[in-house]
């Protein structure tokens, strides 16, 4: 899975029927050392209700169709988790809702 931040949304109205009722979020891959964006961006289906700015991780390929929200949909990238904490080399580098 890949660590990323939600940096935007993508809206599509003319689409295949299997895309009805699923949200697309624009993600940017994060470098765990700095928790900064690497510039690599992807559009992922949201299966956990991730919000803008949140740190998530997403799964790619066929596994991305194995969540209840994306089963049978033509997804190759699905957000499967909202991240609470990231620890790198024993140090907390990210904590959700940290002031």
């Amino acid at each position, binding site marked *: 899975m*890949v660590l990323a931040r939600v940096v935007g949304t993508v809206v599509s109205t003319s689409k295949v029927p299997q895309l009805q009722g699923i949200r697309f979020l624009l993600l940017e891959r994060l470098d*765990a050392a700095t928790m900064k964006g690497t510039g690599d961006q992807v559009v992922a289906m949201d*299966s956990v209700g991730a919000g803008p700015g949140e740190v998530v991780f997403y799964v790619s390929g066929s*596994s991305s169709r194995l969540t209840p929200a994306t089963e049978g949909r033509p997804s190759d990238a699905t957000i499967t988790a909202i991240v*609470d904490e990231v620890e790198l080399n024993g140090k907390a580098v990210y904590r959700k809702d940290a002031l």
Partner: protein
Amino acid sequence: MTLARVCGNVVATKRSDAVAGARYLLVAATDPMGNVLERTIVALDTVGAGLDELVLVSQGSSARQTRVTDKKAIDAVIIGIVDVVEASGTVAYKK
């Protein structure tokens, strides 16, 4: 498979991958000597790997071929902890 070093962990309570008691580790691919080459990915740990250990990571749909990840939304799984890497006749890594 990829040789990788465990360099951290990720906690996520709100998930949709339906893996009970999941333990996600940050791993970075290494060369046979264990020197980190690439940036990190998140991999599900199934063998109790610890920080700085060298591990074997399987990715893609094959990551679902373990008891814990069968039919689960997982694309990277740690399938083993490395004790020794022997390369071109010399011991490149020893735990």
